[in-house]
């Protein structure tokens, strides 16, 4: 695997609050913040950390603004939020829920190609313009519309991942799978309650584990997932800055304020084909493998992890596809507390997609902002002991996944020095 030919730094990250049901501010009948306001807020939060905001390029990630907001031509909103991008090349990337990961990869490639030294990256989604039953229509576009939608479940993706959860339970034990999914949900909530920007920050459920144990009801929802297994409908935006060494000097940023990208890799599947094995996230595994090879590190070096857990089962499958657990063994890894904030593999301390929320196009960028905050000691919910502390594991890793393990980007970072 090719090594990075230039050093790439990431920093000045900012997430807006993740807005949606569960937040006290949220009321479905009252006017809600606009997508412009999220973008402006994320950009301002990022730029406040940059002494000389001078960018060569901008990349914006989003999934379905065309349907949620009737808005296309999104590159034009970058100069709105970042005036310095006026007259500079800007592009929008889309790979469903993996859009954010694609944006990070696109920015990295521009820097590697020496087309840019400083790139501003943003991602956003606003979905609460629609009721959940219609949001499902829009999100189903992350699957193969002509081939799958008609036969699919009303809520489509819960149906697709319910099938995976069913196959997983069938193979490795239904009760154990349910317990691990419930534990995954509990950890999402526990972490989110420590993250003031998380959608579940205000969650006051007395016993999240018991909620997670709710028996799925196929008649009302889907056969193998309950509502607590699913990330919700969310609004929000995230932004960060990526730069070469030369770029850092121009921006006036110090390495000590940054993290460094050490490896990244993408893997794409054929959206018209069905997964060969529903209990395996093939592209997630391939992307991670490529990122590790480029970074020259292995799974034992990862001190903090940000996974794409659109459903609790996705979190378990990702742990196995990345090799952190043998097939069927992610259940034990989670149930034994290894992924908790004081465990050996602190995972999704932001709350993840289930706890922080899932503003689709922002999520990949949001994950990187959280890794930045974890590794630079800025996180509201830091790993204990710190991932870069006594454990000696100085790397962080994220997986951004679009659709049903379709458009996947994995990135490995470490604290810059």
């Amino acid at each position, binding site marked *: 695997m090719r090594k990075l030919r230039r050093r790439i730094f990431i920093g000045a990250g900012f997430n807006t609050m993740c807005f949606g049901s569960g937040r006290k501010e949220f009321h479905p009948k009252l006017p809600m913040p606009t997508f412009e306001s999220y973008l402006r807020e994320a950009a301002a939060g990022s730029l406040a950390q940059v002494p000389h905001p001078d960018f060569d390029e901008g990349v914006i990630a989003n999934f379905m603004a065309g349907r949620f907001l009737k808005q296309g031509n999104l590159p034009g909103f970058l100069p709105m939020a970042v005036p310095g991008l006026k007259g500079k090349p800007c592009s929008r990337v889309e790979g469903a829920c993996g859009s954010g990961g694609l944006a990070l990869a696109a920015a990295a490639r521009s820097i590697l190609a020496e087309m840019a030294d400083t790139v501003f990256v943003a991602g956003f989604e606003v979905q609460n313009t629609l009721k959940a*039953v219609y949001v499902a229509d829009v999100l189903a576009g992350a699957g193969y*519309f002509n081939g799958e939608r008609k036969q699919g479940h*009303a809520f489509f993706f819960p149906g697709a991942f319910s099938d995976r959860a069913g196959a997983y339970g069938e193979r490795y034990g239904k009760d154990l799978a349910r317990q691990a999914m419930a534990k995954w949900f509990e950890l999402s909530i526990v972490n989110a309650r420590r993250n003031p920007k998380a959608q579940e920050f205000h969650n006051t459920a007395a016993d999240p584990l018991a909620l997670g144990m709710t028996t799925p009801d196929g008649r009302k929802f889907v056969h193998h997932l309950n509502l607590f297994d699913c990330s919700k409908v969310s609004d929000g935006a995230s932004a960060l800055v990526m730069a070469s060494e030369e770029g850092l000097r121009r921006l006036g940023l110090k390495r000590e304020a940054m993290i460094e990208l050490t490896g990244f890799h993408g893997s794409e599947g054929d959206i018209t084909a069905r997964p060969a094995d529903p209990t395996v996230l093939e592209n997630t595994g391939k992307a991670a493998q490529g990122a590790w090879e480029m970074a020259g590190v292995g799974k034992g070096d990862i001190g903090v992890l940000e996974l794409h857990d659109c459903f609790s089962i996705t979190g378990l499958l990702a742990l196995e596809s990345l090799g952190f657990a043998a097939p069927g063994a992610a259940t034990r890894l989670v149930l034994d507390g290894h992924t908790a904030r004081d465990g050996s593999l602190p995972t999704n301390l932001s709350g993840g997609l289930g706890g922080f929320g899932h503003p689709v196009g922002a999520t990949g960028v949001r994950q990187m902002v959280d890794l930045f905050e974890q590794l630079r000691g800025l996180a509201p919910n830091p790993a204990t002991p710190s991932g870069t502390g006594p454990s000696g594991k100085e790397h962080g890793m994220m997986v951004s996944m679009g659709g049903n393990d379709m458009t996947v980007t994995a990135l490995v970072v470490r604290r810059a020095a």
Partner: protein
Amino acid sequence: MEQLKSVAVLGAGGKMGSGIAWVALRAMAEADARAHGIPGSGEYALTLIDADSAAFRRLREYLRGQLVKAAEKGINDLRLWAKDRADLIENREIIDAYVEGAMGMIRFASGASEAKGARLVFEAIFEDLGIKRAVYSHLKSVCGPDTVFLTNTSSIPIGLLDESAGLDGRILGFHFYNPPAVQKLVEMISGKRTRPEVVALGRELGKAFGKTVVPSNDVAGFIGNGHFIRELLFAMSKYRELRREWSEPEAWYLLDKVTREFLVRPMGLAQLMDYVGLDVFKMITRVMREYLADPAFADETLDRLLAEGIRGGQLGSGEQKDGVLRYQKNKPAAVLANAALPEGNRYVSLAEPGRFAKADTWLGAPPEGHALWSAMSKDPARATKLETYLAALAQAEGNGARLAREFLTHSRAVGQGLVRDGVAATPEDVGSVLKHGFFHLYAPSDWNG
């Protein structure tokens, strides 16, 4: 169910009529969708009739809103039914097609003659024998010989309607509770000559509508009002008793509190009287007095209140109007002090510090095991808890407990009377009506005090 293919609702613009229209439309749309994927095959027709055509616009919006909500909630079923419609893929497409198809079944009309093609005619017009008789006589002349009539009357004897309009046993009392879209109970009343196949049809309709059908005999008031009106009249006599010692607002306050808290009901009887409307209370009382030939069905306090313009009832929006209580956001906020005073001074705020402290002290607290209806109704162990509470109430000291016992004993006697007079077949049927129609948590026969 073949008869559902052609339905008419008379009085569809009113509160009960519009609810019945929705219940029928939902069942018809579902049946059509099961057979054809999406409603609107042309096999089902619903004619909504009201003399006041100005009500149609609101009715159309109400039905469309209900359809959208039901379609969104039932999207799993909708997708299943529409599985062979290759052109309908997204939830939005399927829901829109469902709603449009169902709306296409509806025809609005102003004259009763427009019911002529209907196999089922639901009637929810004004509660007056003269008017109903005229309408049924007309319907008989325009409708086919198989048409079945379902009247929503809550008090007029079915046999009388049958006889006076010459319907030959094709009429059934089918009494929905307010609001029909939500309330699960339908009281089904057969007249003396109501045909057995019409009764069977009523049962089938109950199933198609997702309702609990409780049979009642054809005695004015039937089971629901047979109990309710007698209890309200009893409450009015208790009010007058309380008035000897207490001011008007205190007397209403005590009456409402004892029947809500001590009896563990969702509303006190003062509030329930406002909810139903004092004019409706009066009208049903009058009908019962006439057909039961019982002069006890009258009340001087009710007459006085109505004369003073105290009416209760609800606005079209469902908002509660002021009666013996004044409401803010449909919750009691003040109580009537003196109807003769100017509008602004008639009521005393329930929040006024100390205003009802003496009344509260006099009433005392409910005995051990008590919980308010809101908590008790959600308690999975409520059956046992209520049994314990009622046993404690039977022994408890204090004026509140004493008054509560009087109400419970009265209610039990009314229930027994309804069974004895053949209005209800069993005490369980009385309990079922009170539980489903009035949200009581126990039956009158559960009281052993």
